[in-house]
């Protein structure tokens, strides 16, 4: 058959093809091609980033040059003090840091606890509770934010940090799910050994299981860090006075009546991005792990 014979032909020529450019040269050529493709892709992802950095170091004349240039004619630092002084930058930064700290703490108290109970303890109602976790993982925030806003309004907490902190202490479905998957892989013998020694379930959890779960917990802590650090919607809804603003809300003050101060804005953006980047660089391993886990299951 014609189709079959071409397949065979391909098979025959695919492997030891006669040495035209030489196998070693071909190998090098292909490797070079791979690098060129990867460098082009990297450039596409990096260029906007480079624009942010170079704009932050440009003079106003440079920023508004026609045609636009990627690199500054003259590198200056002026935009950074301008950024920090033109708004209560420090206050916004402290507010953001406080929210991050408390949200990470809340998540680490609640999520592993619930996840462990769902993964390792056998009890009536467990599957029902686990189902509620799965079902709410996809719940759009918009469905609940109106009643929640009214609830917080009723207790006089709109405008304070409480609506942005308290929910973390009651668990986030996504993290509970992620940690449950991890705990499911911890051997039962650990808990049984603890039971034989007469330890309570809480002590087994705190002293035997949690130390085993460091990588998973680190993953969740990093996710929560970045999520709170970059959050925009909740601060937008709940924080209505400037002394409570987070950085994500405060950056808008660079959009003035008479145009945007791009230099200071990009400098502030850079300062805002660096902590998220730093944690990414330090903990890249956990990021990749966490992303892979969440993607696969």
């Amino acid at each position, binding site marked *: 058959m014609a189709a079959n014979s071409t397949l065979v*032909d391909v098979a025959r020529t695919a492997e030891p093809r006669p040495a035209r450019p030489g196998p070693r040269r071909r190998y090098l050529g292909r490797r070079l091609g791979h690098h060129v493709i990867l460098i082009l892709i*990297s450039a596409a992802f990096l260029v906007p980033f480079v624009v942010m950095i170079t704009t932050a170091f440009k003079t106003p004349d440079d920023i508004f040059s026609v045609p636009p240039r990627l690199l500054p004619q003259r590198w200056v630092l002026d935009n950074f003090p301008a950024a920090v002084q033109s708004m209560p930058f420090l206050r916004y930064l402290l507010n953001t840091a406080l929210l991050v700290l408390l949200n990470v703490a809340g998540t680490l108290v609640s999520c592993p606890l619930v996840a462990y109970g769902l993964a390792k303890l056998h009890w009536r109602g467990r599957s029902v509770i686990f189902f509620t976790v799965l079902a709410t993982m996809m719940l759009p925030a918009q469905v609940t934010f109106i009643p929640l806003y009214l609830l917080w309004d009723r207790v006089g907490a709109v405008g304070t940090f409480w609506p942005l902190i308290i929910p973390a202490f009651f668990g986030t479905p996504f993290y509970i799910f992620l940690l449950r998957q991890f705990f499911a892989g911890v051997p039962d013998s650990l808990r*049984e050994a603890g039971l034989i020694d007469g330890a309570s*379930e809480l002590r087994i959890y705190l002293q035997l299981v949690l130390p085993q779960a460091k990588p998973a917990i680190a993953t969740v802590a990093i996710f929560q860090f970045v999520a709170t650090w970059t959050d925009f919607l909740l601060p937008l809804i709940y924080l209505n006075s400037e002394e409570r603003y987070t950085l*994500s809300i405060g950056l808008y003050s660079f959009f003035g009546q008479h145009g945007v101060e791009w230099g200071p804005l990009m400098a502030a953006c850079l300062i805002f991005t660096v902590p998220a*980047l730093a944690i990414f660089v330090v903990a890249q391993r956990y990021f*990749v792990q966490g*992303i*892979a886990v969440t993607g696969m299951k």
Partner: protein
Amino acid sequence: MPDPATVRAGRGRRPGTRAGFAFSTPWIIGFCVFMAGPIGISLYYSFTEFNLFQEPRWVGLANYAALFDDQKFVRSVLNTAFLAVVGVPLGLALALLVALALNFPVRGQPLYRAVVYLPAIVPVVTATYLWRWVFNAQYGYFNQLLDKVGLPQPNWLADLAWTKPAVLIITWWGIGGTAVIYLAALQQVPQQLYEAAAVDGANGWRRFWHVTWPALTPVTLFQLIMGLIAAVQIFAPTYLLTQSRGNAAGGGPGDSLLTYTMYLFHNAFVFLRMGQAAAMAWILFLVIGLLTLVILISSKRWVHYGSE
């Protein structure tokens, strides 16, 4: 000495029932107070008219009916549908292409992977303001690049034909997470399958279509569902692109950037039409559920779960 496990079991309950419940207490409370309760209440609100200051007044289905006569509502649905239907599949395809490149057997792969993932870490506010600058018609660098390669240079954020493509570019800048997930899946395709395909004489494209792609379909299903759910809720990029002083309810040129959740937000917090907003929230809720269901049903025809 009695075995502690039997002592516990001897109390009449199954071992660990009380403990299990205790461990889950935070979630059970959180679920009731922050999720189940508000979901129910928002359904009730969707049948009422109220504005935060007065008690809700029952109006039946009037909120739902009014929405479909509302030009802006229809506009927001169409805008969002465009971003989801065009943006998500193309975004997945791009992420897959990037992942295939990242999977090349070259040195420095972790570095390339980190670079691709980098924009996904950038706070959405920063990213959007940055793109507002990059897309600037006069001083932005994007059009400068287009000029260099001889392409037309649209006024991205002011021309209503180009605002949505601009949003797609911004969201595609952040596909690193999806690419990394695809990369992990690619690395798990059993090597024997490729060897078998090579023995059968399959070339690059056939190898991809008959070996790689089937192995990637479960991940694609997951990414498609998550991507669509995120896309129909897109808020921050469009909100930040259209943000302007003195106009709290902006929608970009010709309302071309008014997305569904933006209009929901305007209804709730700018116009204080809470009932209307709750109705929109519930429509969104149902659409997301339905979408997920349809994709899951269709997945039986295109998703392959390997025997391993």
